[in-house]
């Protein structure tokens, strides 16, 4: 254990918040999908990595900037997610029980396919500004993380506007609150589910593009990522978007602090410890309601 100086502490805090912003984007889709469908999409990590690989491809083949590649990867993964929900997930009988295993099977299948296509070499996307750093009042801000945070913020604000101001957004919120009541007032719940899954996967695509320039990854990194963002949405309260954002910032900061105070190797355990503690002390998470189980 080392007690960090004030300077190091604040530096770590800044990095934690920057990382937390990207985590928030990744977790937003997962918690939205759970809210609407009561499905834990364990394949979310695999979709993140798929987004990262598309970005990597665009970057190495055409030199497209990872931030600009969002324009292509986001619609593409929206379409994939929409099709997966419409033609695969709707076939599940007893979704509350079986959906975890089905999406887990999807995750394994995708990991295998991605490992076959892109091999197991660890990749990262390095645009020209990859190693540049902005110095601000003696604190170092890596450009990629700053850009990642900014991009995450933009996407999250767009998501918020969509949820609050559009008809689809209202339909999604209505479905989250009460599926049957939403159906009664004329919401096409099946279509809302497909759109939500598409949107959720699209945010994973955006998260994946940001991930590709901040972290190195290969197909098997998906297990690492899914366990992080799952811990985030459990801590935040499953289905609660504001909860997920708060939890992402908390865990981002905690992870960075653990890396400084103890060692880098122990930092991943923070997520799991928080997951366990949440479930023991406050199973509904920071801002969620108790998830009603079908009796």
């Amino acid at each position, binding site marked *: 254990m080392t007690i960090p100086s004030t300077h190091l502490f604040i530096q770590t805090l800044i990095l934690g918040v920057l990382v937390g912003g990207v985590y928030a984007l990744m977790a937003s889709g997962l918690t939205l999908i759970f809210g609407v469908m009561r499905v834990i999409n364990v394949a979310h990590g695999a979709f993140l990595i798929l987004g990262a690989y598309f970005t990597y491809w665009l970057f190495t083949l055409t030199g497209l900037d990872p931030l600009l590649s969002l324009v292509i990867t986001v619609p593409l993964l929206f379409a994939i997610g929409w099709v997966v929900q419409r033609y695969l997930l709707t076939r599940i009988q007893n979704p509350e029980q079986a959906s975890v295993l089905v999406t887990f*099977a999807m995750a394994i*299948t995708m990991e295998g*396919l991605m490992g076959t296509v892109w091999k197991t070499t660890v990749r990262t996307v390095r645009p020209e500004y990859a190693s540049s750093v902005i110095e601000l009042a003696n604190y170092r801000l890596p450009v990629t993380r700053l850009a990642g945070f900014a991009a995450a913020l933009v996407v999250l604000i767009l998501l918020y506007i969509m949820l609050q101001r559009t008809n689809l957004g209202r339909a999604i919120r209505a479905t989250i609150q009460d599926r049957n009541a939403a159906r009664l007032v004329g919401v096409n719940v099946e279509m809302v589910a497909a759109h939500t899954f598409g949107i959720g996967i699209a945010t994973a695509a955006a998260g994946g593009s940001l991930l590709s320039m901040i972290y190195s990854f290969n197909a098997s990194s998906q297990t690492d990522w899914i366990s992080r963002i799952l811990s985030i949405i459990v801590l935040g309260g499953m289905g609660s978007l504001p909860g997920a954002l708060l939890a992402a910032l908390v865990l981002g900061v905690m992870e960075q602090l653990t890396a400084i105070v103890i*060692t880098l190797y*122990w930092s991943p355990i923070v997520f799991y410890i928080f*997951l*366990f503690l949440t479930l023991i002390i406050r199973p509904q998470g920071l801002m969620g309601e108790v998830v009603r*189980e079908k009796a």
Partner: protein
Amino acid sequence: MRRWRIPAGVWIGGAFLALLAFPLVQRSQYYQHVMVMTMMAAVLASSWNILGGYTGYTSLGHAAFFGLGGYLVALAHNYLGWHPFISTWFLAIVVMAVALLLGWIALRTHGSAFVVVTIAMVFIFRIVALNLGDITNGARGLTQPRPGWGGVQWSPEIIKIPFHYIVLALLCLTVLVSWRIRLSKFGLGLVAIREDEGKAEAVGIDTMVYKVLAFGISAYFVAVAGGIYSYFFTYIDPQFIFNIFTSVTMVLIALLGGRGTLWGPVLGAFIMEPLGDWLVGTFGGTQIHLAVFGAILLGVMLFMPQGILPSLSEIRIRLTRRRGPGLSSG
């Protein structure tokens, strides 16, 4: 006219004798190895089934108990000289105690949340094993001496045979316990929890105690298997033994054969394990076998969610029903 049916006892006895004679008849090292791994998979799936099948709580965390059993046995062998074939039965009790404690926490959640918590368990164990380098040797893993008894190492030609019989014994014990539980009042309580936990509680079943006990028992046999496994390979490391894939395999096997049935997990293991071995042998080195494995799991979940055995008995019931009226009218 009633068709003559072979009694279940004859089937079971015949299969047991065949397994007993297997290593004496089949001398190929490769097939002996596959048979040991198949029976071990049957142990894991049957043991998982006590919790996952009877109570309906899908755990993806049993790889944690498999790995913990493996580590305890390897450590006791290297530092204290305890022979794994004996120590594994006792050290698995320690694992069971850990499982009871973890189950007491994890079983407060239901459905999907429970699955997530159990996934986290595997990762916690792995990170701890990686980081307690002084004890576990970290990522470099633990090596045990070559298997033998009383200072004499078994020669390579016969080395699989002792493992064959100890895993066979474990398989018999696991199935026996699973069968006794199924017939007992305890087992009825577990099935009641699966069907409706609220009502089970209302009729006076202490559901928490039942669930936690089922969790502990189902961890025990998995831990014993983990101990034997670590000696079979004489090498374990955290990535390898605390592997979520081990858990998924248990679930897939139990689902394929028939979740909640006594023989489903055994049947599933005798289908999946040789198939998996063939896949790795054919596509080895690439990751395509992972994709094939996932696709099979997806197919089972979507098109045969009940598994083979329940589907078969459904077909048989439908056939006899159809035959019945035909006979009376003719």
